[in-house]
């Protein structure tokens, strides 16, 4: 999906939601305190955009770092888990069982041990997208692509590097989709972590706005989160597309 298409989709959803909110406000005569009018929203946006932009950049940076850590770790563990050996079977069983446990439920413990700084946010972001990545990667790396691998297997040329290269190449679209999906989860995880206990980022800003019952600030934060998520996910899709095109000789 192109960057402009994704941004357009986000903008249409966001502004449709906003319009519905205002329709409800004026239809039922809700107070400005409950649902801010357009003028107030504009005023909040112009007054606070710099602070909120800095917060959302901070959150996105943590989410990207957590996402990449999770991709690296999931690749490594899936590589171990792809084999039929004892280690492989143990890794797969552990992955399938552990992923059933909601990471958000463990988040308070992480804050207790690591405090409310960067480390906790990074760890939660990484953990929240790690298991979906791991399960997909294990599936991809352990599923033979017999049509391509057969020749190398029958002639005794197969080795783990070739096997991994074939399976990765044949599943590039699936891998890109999984990484894009987990990218959303990384952003969600970071925001949830910030919302719970952190002292930085857009989640923390939303928490403060919530205590002030200021929906205008929350709406501005949501707009920026959506904008940056769309940009990040489009970037991953673009990189995935470029890699595939380059490998395909296009």
């Amino acid at each position, binding site marked *: 999906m192109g960057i402009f298409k994704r941004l357009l989709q986000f903008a249409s959803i966001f502004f449709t939601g906003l319009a519905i909110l205002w329709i409800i406000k004026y239809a039922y005569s809700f107070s400005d305190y409950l649902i801010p009018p357009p003028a107030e929203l504009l005023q909040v946006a112009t007054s606070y955009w710099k602070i909120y932009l800095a917060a959302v950049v901070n959150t996105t940076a943590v989410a990207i770092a957590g996402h990449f850590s999770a991709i690296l770790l999931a690749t490594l563990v899936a590589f171990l888990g792809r084999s039929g050996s004892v280690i492989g079977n143990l890794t797969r069983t552990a992955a399938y069982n552990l992923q059933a446990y909601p990471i958000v439920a463990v988040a308070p413990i992480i804050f207790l041990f690591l405090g409310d700084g960067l480390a906790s946010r990074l760890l939660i972001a990484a953990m929240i997208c790690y298991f979906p990545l791991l399960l997909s990667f294990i599936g991809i790396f352990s599923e033979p692509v017999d*049509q391509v691998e*057969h020749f190398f297997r*029958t*002639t*005794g040329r197969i080795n783990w590097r070739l096997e991994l*290269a074939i399976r990765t*190449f044949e599943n590039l679209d699936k891998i890109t989709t999984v990484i894009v999906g987990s990218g959303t989860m990384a952003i969600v995880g970071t925001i949830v972590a910030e919302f719970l206990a952190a002292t930085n980022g857009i989640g923390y800003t939303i928490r403060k706005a919530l205590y002030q019952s200021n929906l205008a600030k929350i709406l501005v934060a949501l707009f920026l989160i959506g904008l940056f998520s769309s940009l990040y996910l489009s970037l991953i899709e673009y990189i995935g597309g470029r890699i595939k095109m380059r490998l*395909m000789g296009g």
Partner: protein
Amino acid sequence: MRLVCDNLYYRYPGTDTPVFKGLSFGIDRPGFISLFGFSGIGKSTLARIISGEIPPDKGRVDVETTGQILYSHNAERFPGWESTGHHLERVCDYGKRDLLAHLIEEYAVAPYLHSRYSGLSMGQKNRMNLIRYLVQDFGILIADEVLANVDEPTRNHILAGIKELLADRIFLYISHNALEVARFSRLVLVLPQNPEEGHTAIRIIDGLDEGTGQRTYEERTLQDRVYQLLRAASGMKT
């Protein structure tokens, strides 16, 4: 050079009907041998058992050969990240470069060496795939419908060439085409459609063993041999 299958039993996991019950046959010298039978009769399964890809439930395969047993089928693909020419060079066995160049010319695939495998026609894919097997070191090559998408004149030309090239090795050719099987094979192993009660009896029928530029038999002989193969495959007495 020898290939013996002795009392093979095989049933696919989760099924009740065995593919083979006590299947036995032997090949005691090299040459162009065909495995013929109707669809679903177990030709590819037998090929995979002979090549060691799947073990039989019972029985054994004895092979006396100087090289490995290779099994090729027509659903295979080259890796998508490299051109066909680069791939052929990469997988060509040491000392087979001249043969590779010869086959590229003989099979008329030179114009497509810069293409990716996915960009080729089905017939071009078949020829490319066969080339990469022919430039390996092997004692037995099992070719399962590897020329299924190649036009008939080209296929006949390729098969006649293979007979010369692999005269000292066993080339086990699996095909549904009774005519080409009858023409080029020294021996045809026919898997009958309705195996006799109790065991799978493979029938061995002499082929016409046609080589490059030779045709020493009458048209009528070829017709008779084709009918004989079809009768054997359908389970009728030949």
